């Protein structure tokens, strides 16, 4: 007997008390563990928002679009976001610049090169068109994000019909994604470093290849 309570009574009371506490602490540890798995930066199971970007790679540059296909000057995300990038070869949208000029709704990317100039060639220099035509046999590009060491490639020749390379005129990025998905490169990664990162092409794509670079195109806040 201790303080008027029998040994068996004390033991029963201790067991009841401890059971409460053990169950509570066990549940707490499980809940904290699950919360940490789903929320901590180091966890592979963290619930990360996905930021989607569509990038058109043309001769010789990149055009960036957000998930709603609005053109944006650069790709901006928050640290910890999951990023997915679709790299679309401009050659799958349109190849014929004359047709593009006639149809205002077409997106003509190579005109950007003509208007802006490329490397040593000034804007609207006729040699730019010559170089563009000479490079049409090299329609593929890549986009390498420096600092992240992430790379994504296009595959123009992956879209074929009847054994021959198909080059239909497509009116929009959405149409390319539906009809020529095989040509579109895709990469997904976690933006875990803050900073401003350059992107450039690593696949030889003609005269302007060394100039196909956009400074600070990928920004992680």
């Amino acid at each position: 007997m201790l303080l008027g309570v029998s040994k068996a009574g004390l033991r029963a009371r201790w067991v009841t008390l401890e059971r409460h506490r053990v169950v509570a602490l066990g549940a707490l540890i499980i809940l904290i563990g699950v919360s940490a798995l789903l929320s901590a930066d180091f966890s592979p199971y963290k619930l990360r928002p996905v930021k989607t970007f569509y990038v058109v790679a043309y001769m010789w540059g990149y055009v960036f679009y957000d998930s709603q296909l609005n053109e944006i000057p650069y790709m901006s995300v928050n640290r910890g976001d999951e990023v997915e990038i679709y790299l679309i070869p401009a050659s799958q949208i349109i190849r014929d610049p004359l047709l593009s000029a006639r149809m205002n709704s077409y997106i003509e990317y190579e005109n950007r090169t003509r208007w802006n100039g490329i490397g040593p060639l000034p804007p609207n220099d006729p040699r730019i068109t010559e170089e563009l035509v000479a490079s049409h046999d090299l329609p593929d590009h890549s986009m390498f994000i420096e600092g992240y060491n992430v790379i994504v490639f296009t595959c123009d020749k992956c879209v074929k019909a009847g054994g021959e390379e198909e080059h239909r005129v497509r009116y929009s990025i959405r149409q390319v994604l539906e009809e020529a998905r095989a040509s579109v490169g895709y990469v997904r990664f976690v933006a875990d470093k803050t900073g401003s990162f350059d992107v450039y092409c690593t696949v030889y794509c003609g005269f302007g290849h060394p100039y196909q670079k956009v400074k600070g195109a990928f920004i992680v806040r």
Partner: protein
Amino acid sequence: MMDSTLGTYAKASTIILWTISAFFGSMAISLFVDGLAISLRIWLENRIGSPGLSALAYNSVHYFLFQLMVILLLIGILGRVRVSGIRAVVLLLTLTAGKLAGRAVAEQPPPPSQVAFSFVVSAALSASAIVLVEDLLNNSKSEKSALLYSLGSITFVAVTLWFAAFPLIDMFGSLDLSNSSRIGMVLSLVVLGYMETKGSTARWTPLPIVIMTAYLTVSLLVSSLLSDLMMSTRTIASLPAQELVLYVASRVPLAFFLSMIVISGTFIRRLSVSRLNQCWGDLINK
């Protein structure tokens, strides 16, 4: 003499253990559960695109799961030991400090008025958790209906008025004013909780908590309608049916959070010095 010294050491070491466990436990809860609430909200907004669902998920984790985990922590630390007086205050401050430390690790330093609001809210929620652990584990009698309806009615009016006024106050664009008004709301609910229950010896059990939450859910919806009328906006009327259901559901965890603040008024009862000596020995006697 020697037994007395050993007893003092035992008490001191137990209280130090409590304090350390309460601080780091609440810090871990704050760090990971707040992080989960934010991650879940952004994830649902991004992947599913339903603001109602993301608000419901955020409120459920931030208001309900958080408090549930603090209660589990206290059950784990205290068991059935009753705390009052200085020990209750120390426990309250330790829990609050742990929660704020958890947020400080994860977030950018907020402005002073925001810190003051976080402190008041965290302290009130810690107080309600201490009250609930004691009441849920030791109760034999629930809160009287008449008292509950009286408390429910008066807090219904207070919450309706406060939440209808917040959009008007926020229109001034002053963060200090907005935070001060929130602090005023919390303190008024604590005072109401204390004033209405100070003569009672009854305790909080799950049913009275559910009833209080139901009262306050309705008051939050009424205040939303009132603020829509006052601000000439159509927040509720413009919601599609599914979003409206999710909006109403997302008010429930918020109402639970407000009922916890009301319950924290009962904590002041635990501070009575007359119970101090009686409760001080409970730790050893249990």
